[in-house]
């Protein structure tokens, strides 16, 4: 390279950094940077009235799984914590599964509409996606509560005689999360199906495959990247959900997100809250890495 070419190359790279600088500074100050503080706090001593005291300690991390026995100060497994983790994971997996089962036909339906109608159906999926999460969660509250729509309809039909108590528990959280995260499953599935060459279906049927066989042997393998993307997009926010379990779980049925908040509120255990946050972050990053690996492999094949 000539000096002039080198200078030009260096200039474009410098411009790239200069132009990105405001965004990078904002994100460092008000998003990424503070995460490091959380990491540091997770290794500090707990303060008496919240906050932390300077001094290295692994109590925060140990506290994720263990708790001091009330009687003899020995460390025992913290059953309450494990219950919360298990509930979070279980509900997140369940939410991911159900959103896929109902989301796939929906995405397929949208992708097979004529182009004009397709844009409209897609728009109908995106409206709930952009609508305030709190409002959507509250809308589920409206439907599930004792005097809500579901009970009203079931009573009228004579299916039940006493209103069902559906609110404030894992079931309500599960329904709420399925409802709020469904568009996150449908959109990537749609993107994958939209790229799918529909002539392959005719080829499949031509070669004696049944509808179910075409679905299993042709469609699903090809749209797999969309399935993985949708699953990650639903699983990750489900695991860290805060608003939905708070509004529909009724305070007692916590998920990890609420448990973290508790440590910074009444729990007054900032190191534990910080350690929990970091642990959650690690789990999410692992999920994302698996996704990136998978996506890259798919690309390499295609």
């Amino acid at each position: 390279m000539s000096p002039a070419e080198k200078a030009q190359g260096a200039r474009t790279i410098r411009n790239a950094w200069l132009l990105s600088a405001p965004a990078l500074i904002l994100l460092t100050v008000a998003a990424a940077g503070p995460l490091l503080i959380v990491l540091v706090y997770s290794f500090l001593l707990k303060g008496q009235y919240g906050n932390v005291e300077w001094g290295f300690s692994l109590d925060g991390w140990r506290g994720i799984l263990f708790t001091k026995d009330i009687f003899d100060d020995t460390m025992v497994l913290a059953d309450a914590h494990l219950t919360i983790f298990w509930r979070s994971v279980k509900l997140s997996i369940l939410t991911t599964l159900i959103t896929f089962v109902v989301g796939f036909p929906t995405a397929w339906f949208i992708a097979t509409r004529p182009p004009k109608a397709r844009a409209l159906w897609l728009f109908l999926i995106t409206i709930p996606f952009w609508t305030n999460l709190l409002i959507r969660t509250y809308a589920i509250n409206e439907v599930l509560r004792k005097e809500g729509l579901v009970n009203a309809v079931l009573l009228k039909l004579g299916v039940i005689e006493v209103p069902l108590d559906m609110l404030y528990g894992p079931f309500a959280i599960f329904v709420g999360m399925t409802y709020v995260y469904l568009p996150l499953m449908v959109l990537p599935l749609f993107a994958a199906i939209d790229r799918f060459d529909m002539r392959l279906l005719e080829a499949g049927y031509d070669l004696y495959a049944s509808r179910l066989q075409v679905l299993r042997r042709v469609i699903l393998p090809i749209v797999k990247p969309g399935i993985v993307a949708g699953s990650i997009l639903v699983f990750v926010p489900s695991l860290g959900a805060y608003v939905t379990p708070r509004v529909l779980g009724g305070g007692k049925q916590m998920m990890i997100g609420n448990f973290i908040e508790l440590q910074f509120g009444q729990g007054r255990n900032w190191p534990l809250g910080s350690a929990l946050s970091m642990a959650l972050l690690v789990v999410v990053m692992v999920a994302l890495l698996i996704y990136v690996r998978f996506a890259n492999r798919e690309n390499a094949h295609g």
Partner: protein
Amino acid sequence: MARQSFSAVRLPGFTTTAVLVFLALYVPIFTLVAYSFNASQSVAVWGGFSLDWYAKAWANTQVKEATLRSLLIAVSASAIATAAATMAALGTTRRKAFRGQTFIYVMINQPLMVPEIVTAVALLIFFAAIKVATGYQGLGYLILAHSAFCIPFAYLPIRARLEGMDLSLETAAADLYATPWQTFRRVTLPLLGPGIIAGAMLAFVISLDDVVITEFVKSGGQDTLPTYMLGQMRRQLTPEINAISTMLLMLTVAILTAFFLLTRKND
């Protein structure tokens, strides 16, 4: 019976499921909207049509202040985020790969990857320390936090627009004696316009809707509309919440419709 021709794209039960899904998506929202017109004192009983709850919400100074605060934050944050995102998009697209490019991408998309609760906690800790150190308690923290997490939402449509833009247009401008600044001002920016507007609208909606981070960052008396509603949901529920929700919903739908029309016209 009329014979139905074989359709390769049809799969059994798919259309039914899809229709049910769309119903399930919209019935709760419509129920919520319907109850905002409920004359009854309680959310439980339907007492006829009325606009009382809208009047009540409107008369509620807490609601009014929260609304203004929400709008102020959303306008400031989306403006800042869009400006930063536009610059970043100009810096990172349409050039050869360079060292650190991945780092910039990861940083910009970081708010999409980290669970909101984790960022909220981090900002709570960080801003608490700054509040103690500086004594400043104002809305700046919220605007700063919102600006940061709105960046990826503003960045995506702007970047998409830039990547779809013919590079030779700017080359042509330079060929026709335009300085780099003139090229940007007269060619790049006008062509980028719809992308920037789309990015700003998404950032605005995202900021307006945020609950978790706002809940953790706000100081006393800094409720936004969503955090005010979250607070109210702990208490006795009245259709006032429905009325506020409906108004917020309408605003979101209006912006999204504009976004939809804007991006479609330019396809």
